[in-house]
């Protein structure tokens, strides 16, 4: 009986282990190349054990353009998330009060906004930004990112707000609280984890976005994803700096994910599972 149970579970473990190996090996391999000398990086057969060298990372640190891009990505991500949250919180609160009608409305809007391809937006915004001087600025990029993540942010927050018992809100009202006070004293404290999950998912999306940044920035506000595209051309020659730059771009988001794993899973599944 015991043996039989192990045998029925065995395929599940094999599948899980295989999936993990395929998922993690490329990341580990790229990390290892970023820490190798040039000769080791290109060695065939590959070198599996080596003493790590930090030269590639030090070279990145000395690269003003790359350092600037990391800084720009940080500024744009923080600004975009703050703006989106400031608008999404009251919008989600208002829509939550509309109950079912509100839900259908954002669902339709979310799907529609999601369907439209990036370059349909980028070029009209490019024209607009050139005219009003927001092209290649942190604020300009953050504003358009905020517009992009907003439907998702509102959708998520509304679902979290919907879990707050109506009785609490009514009690607060009887105590003389207005809309703003209800929002700040009742809803926000109760949905703090949800708010964090929303902000984190938005931050990851903004940090990783390429197409919009490519279209709307040039030099001053160039983000990290645009900066690494310069490695495309000589990918076959210069693996060291390219892999190091990749790791620098990946690492903050992976750390984020490890710390907030539970919330991220909740956020990702919320929209789809609850429908």
């Amino acid at each position, binding site marked *: 009986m015991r043996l039989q149970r192990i045998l029925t579970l065995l395929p599940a473990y094999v599948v899980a282990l295989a*999936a993990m190996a*395929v998922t993690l090996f490329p990341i580990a*391999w790229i990390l290892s190349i970023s820490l190798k000398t040039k000769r080791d990086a290109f060695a*065939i057969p590959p070198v599996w054990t080596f003493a790590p060298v930090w030269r590639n990372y030090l070279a990145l640190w000395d690269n003003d353009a790359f350092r600037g891009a990391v800084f720009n990505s940080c500024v744009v991500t923080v600004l975009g998330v703050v703006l989106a949250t400031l608008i999404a919180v009251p919008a989600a609160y208002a829509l939550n009060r509309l109950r079912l009608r509100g839900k259908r409305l954002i669902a339709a809007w979310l799907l529609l906004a999601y369907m439209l391809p990036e*370059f*349909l937006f980028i070029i009209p915004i490019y*024209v607009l930004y050139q005219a009003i001087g927001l092209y290649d600025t942190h604020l300009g990029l953050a504003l358009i990112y905020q517009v992009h993540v907003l439907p998702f942010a509102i959708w998520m927050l509304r679902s979290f707000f919907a879990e707050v018992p109506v009785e609490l809100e009514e009690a607060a009202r009887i105590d003389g609280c207005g809309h703003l006070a209800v929002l700040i004293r009742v809803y926000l404290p109760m949905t703090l984890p949800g708010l964090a999950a929303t902000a984190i998912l938005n931050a990851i999306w903004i940090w990783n976005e390429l197409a919009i940044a490519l279209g709307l920035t040039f030099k001053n506000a160039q983000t990290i994803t645009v900066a690494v595209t310069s490695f495309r051309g000589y*990918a076959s020659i210069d693996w060291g700096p*390219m892999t190091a730059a990749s790791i620098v771009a990946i690492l903050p988001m992976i750390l984020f994910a490890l710390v907030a794993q539970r919330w991220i899973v909740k956020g990702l599944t919320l929209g789809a599972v609850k429908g």
Partner: protein
Amino acid sequence: MLLVLGATSLYPFAYALFISLFDWNWGRSMSFIGLANYTRLLGDVEFWLIMKNTLVFATSATAIELLLGLGIAVAVDRLRFGATLVRTLLLTPLMISGIIVALMSKVMLDSFLGIVNYLLGLIGVGPSTFYGTEATAMFTIVMVDTWWQTAFVFIILLAGLQSLAAEPREAARLDGASEWRIFRHITMPQLAPLLLTVLIIRSIDTLKVFDIVFGTTGGGPGLATEVAQTLAYRTAFAYLQIGRAMAVMVLFSILVLALCALYLRLGSERRD
């Protein structure tokens, strides 16, 4: 408030429609040419080839990701210990930007020095040129997208599986139904609405693919991997034909909308 929000989505679409009626190269002169951009595109063999590429990429990547994601979700759902750790680790590709995934794949899949060709060589396969030839480039990009996004399908379906009521399955098991029949006749129907949601999300995402094509082949070799969004980018920022680029995006948006409407239709018909 809602009107303002709606306007931020509608303005670009309206403006895109407007520009698509002009011949414009970012310069001062902008001449109205009516529907000429559209008629030229619709009569252009290259445009149809690129639309075909986009559909081939989207359908194959979505199909493979759905199958794999479902398989892994079912497996992880059965794990007795370590499930949370497995879930966390499997999620990592989703945290990585598409352009980084593209660059990583170029290092891994290098024809001569890449680790993947070396490993394939050990089991007597290959070597493959991956991105280098028309025959393999599209397949390679599909595989890279699979590595990147299968975790999304997996995480949603796993959450779905974990939220299903256990009683029907246990009752069937007591009646002596085989695991496969239980999966086929009880689990799958319960999971169907979620599968449709994931299908729609992944279809939209893969149709809009940009980063991993831009970062690997740039559409080549030839036009073998050129897709709608890389075409729009090239037309607008390399060939400076803005009206034409907007016409590409408008036509493409209609295609995406039509496909989603079709899926939603099929979904609601099944439910009836």
